[in-house]
């Protein structure tokens, strides 16, 4: 082997190594994050942490009970607003969207998915908080719904477009009117993909902090109506992380462990179910 060939071979191996090394570098922070969250978070977790209200400043104990409850409520409000709007818009795009208006909606939804989450917070602040005179669970829900809608629109559209035309035609041939075919046949055939997309989007927005900072704001007490501020897990983690108290930091890690576990269980579970469904044939 002459020296040119040797050089090429060595260069090839070096680049192979560098490429593999970049995988290692990308995995290191992920592993470190998961390890720290578990190690620092576990000592904070107990029944009181999951169920009680936060303790007064400077006193040990207390929990994130209200924040856990609040996260469910705000994400619930967001889903109530975002899912119907997103899914029906997706139905329109898949069934009637092959025109200029449809393509415009598609493109706008795509561009909206890239809007920074803090901007949806400002939007809900002007729309709800300023109009109704105060921070509220509703404003938080609107901010998160604004993030959800474009994603749900696109996943619904894509899932429905995957439904084979034969199924549509079979339904129409049986005399079922087109609108009923869309809703009862196409939508229900595509429901698995739509539910998967919805659950992944819910998992994604339940970790959002920025849109909630000045919409849902925070509260040291339990949920008190949709027009009042409410504590949420991400905002609570943020507040506690930046506080000067050592035991608040521990509680922030505890909250992080709860949040990460919930999100990972939801998103990995959904992906696992989806993977089995798609790889296991019909």
């Amino acid at each position, binding site marked *: 082997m002459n020296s040119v060939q040797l050089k090429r071979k060595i260069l090839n191996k070096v680049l192979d190594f560098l*490429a593999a090394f970049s995988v290692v570098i990308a995995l290191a922070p992920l592993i470190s994050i998961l390890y720290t969250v578990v190690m620092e978070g576990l000592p904070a977790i107990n029944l009181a942490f999951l169920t009680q209200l936060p303790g007064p400043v400077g006193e040990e104990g207390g929990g994130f009970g209200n924040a856990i409850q609040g996260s469910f409520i705000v994400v619930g409000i967001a889903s109530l607003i975002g899912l119907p709007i997103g899914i029906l*818009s997706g139905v*329109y795009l898949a069934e009637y969207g092959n025109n200029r208006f449809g393509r415009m*909606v598609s493109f706008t*939804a795509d561009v909206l998915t890239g809007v920074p989450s803090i901007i949806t917070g400002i939007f809900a602040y002007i729309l709800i908080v300023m109009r109704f005179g105060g921070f509220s669970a509703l404003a938080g829900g609107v901010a998160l719904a604004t993030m959800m809608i474009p994603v749900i629109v696109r996943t619904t559209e894509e899932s429905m477009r995957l439904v084979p035309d034969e199924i549509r035609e079979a339904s129409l041939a049986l005399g079922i009117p087109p609108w009923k075919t869309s809703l009862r046949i196409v939508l229900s055939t595509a429901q698995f993909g739509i539910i998967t997309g919805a659950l992944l989007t819910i998992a994604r927005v339940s970790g959002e902090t920025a849109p909630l900072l000045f919409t849902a704001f925070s509260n040291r007490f339990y949920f008190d109506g949709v027009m009042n501020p409410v504590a949420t897990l991400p905002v609570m983690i943020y507040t506690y992380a930046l506080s000067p108290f050592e035991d608040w930091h521990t509680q922030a890690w505890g909250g992080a462990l709860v949040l990460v576990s919930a999100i990972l269980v939801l998103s990995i579970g959904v992906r696992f179910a989806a993977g089995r469904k798609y790889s296991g044939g019909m």
Partner: protein
Amino acid sequence: MRKRFSPDTMFEFAVGAVAFTGVILLAVLLLGELVLGAMPSIKTFGVGFLFETTWDPVFEKFGALAFIYGTLLSSFLAMLIGVPLSLGIAIYLAEVASSNVRTLISPVIELMAAIPSVIIGLWGIFVFAPFMRDYIATPLAKYLGFLPFFSGPAFGLSFLTAGFILAFMIIPIVSSITREALLAVPVLQKEGALALGATRWEMIVMTVLPYSRAAIFGAVIIGLGRAIGETMAVTMVIGNTPQLAASLLAPGYSMAAVIANEFTEATGDLYLSALIEIGLILFIISILVNASSRLLVWRYFEVRDSK
């Protein structure tokens, strides 16, 4: 004969109306409210808002330059660190690793995207920033301190730390789009290069990368859009000091971070309006960045699918 108000036309009209309200009207409302909210600030400061560094709530003198600088600098650093790594990961998974390794590693890399940014920020404050200060920033300041980028005291919370954190956050999306783009390169192209005696990497440089260039560029711009808009993780590690420091080891501020920090405290209409104007600038930048990246990625995969 089709009736004018048949259930079908009504259904089409109804879902069309939802799509119009939920997507188009939403986008218009978003932009409209931001513009209206920013109006007092736009009228008071004009274009000078973009070039003024003073941020003084007490005397109501506001300029966004320090925040724009911080956002652009931290995002630029994120690209500098994250893009080569993403490219390496994508090439490894698409061309080097076996398909078993690919199906195992790909979802793990993408798992990072599922971690909420506030938790990445929490890790950033307590784990990564101290690590940066002790093992990266301090040596850089000591040995390369004569360069303006590494001059001055080394802080844990800095532009560079924010850049690293952002790099970690954009790697999943940039590397996965790039990986898909590489996998979409026709096998014949690759085999041609290999048949001519090229090594794997010569083949990658000669055929794979030129073919998928446009989609990779689109992936990079999507990553840039994410980095520019990222809020919590940056807020927690950039140091929140509005200044135009040349040193990457100095603390800074970003557009999203100042909104996150000061919005609830903004007393006075002009203060709030100035923050909303920063939001508007951020919104416009991210819309432009996203629209262009979508067009690039779309076109690539469309051309391929139509073949």
